[in-house]
């Protein structure tokens, strides 16, 4: 079974620029998560989708971050404009039905300079 795919793996941008990350979850997984992991900290949930609907986006900075899940499959996370404090690893994960575990992608390491 293919895992969760994320791209790009690394991205360096200047502050105030925009950036987008892409995630392809495991086939058939209804739930998709985006997490932000700042160096030395645990992952923080940014947004959770159930199929193509948003379940939780309470910690998403909506003035600069946006996310969508196309047709309940792939997802993109966008930051516009980026700030220095957005430097982090952005992790995408997906899970199947019930109380099953989440599978994580390799993450995208964003550096804002």
């Amino acid at each position, binding site marked *: 079974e293919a895992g969760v795919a994320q791209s790009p793996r690394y991205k360096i941008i200047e502050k105030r620029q925009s950036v987008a990350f892409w995630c392809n979850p495991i086939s058939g997984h209804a*739930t998709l*998560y985006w997490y932000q992991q700042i160096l030395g*900290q*645990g*992952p923080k*949930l940014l947004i*959770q989708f*159930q199929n193509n609907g948003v*379940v*939780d986006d309470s910690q998403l900075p909506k003035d600069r971050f946006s996310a969508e899940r196309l047709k309940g499959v792939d997802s993109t996370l966008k930051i516009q404009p980026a700030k220095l404090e957005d430097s982090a690893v952005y*992790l995408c*994960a997906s*899970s199947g039905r019930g*109380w*099953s*575990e*989440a*599978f*994580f*992608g*390799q*993450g995208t*390491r964003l550096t804002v300079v």
Partner: protein
Amino acid sequence: AQSVTQLDSHVSVSEGTPVLLRCNYSSSYSPSLFWYVQHPNKGLQLLLKYTSAATLVKGINGFEAEFKKSETSFHLTKPSAHMSDAAEYFCVVPFPSGSARQLTFGSGTQLTVLP
């Protein structure tokens, strides 16, 4: 609010000695509990999972965890540490959130293995 507490932010052991990483969670209905491991510059990998079948769960690389409902604990153990076990470990609990489940992470425990 639901919470997951990892009692030690850093644990240091010598190679060949036992490992104990502690995790407690707030009391609420959750039939699943997970431990994930993250090696430097790598994604999160599932180490083991509890799914109500047995209270003692075996995972990969010789790790085990015991679910104790009365103590709301899910501590991770390994009889003999290996250098390759050095990594960050996260206890994760899916709590109900409306019709969905929200994964709640502990703050993580950094395991150092000394030669």
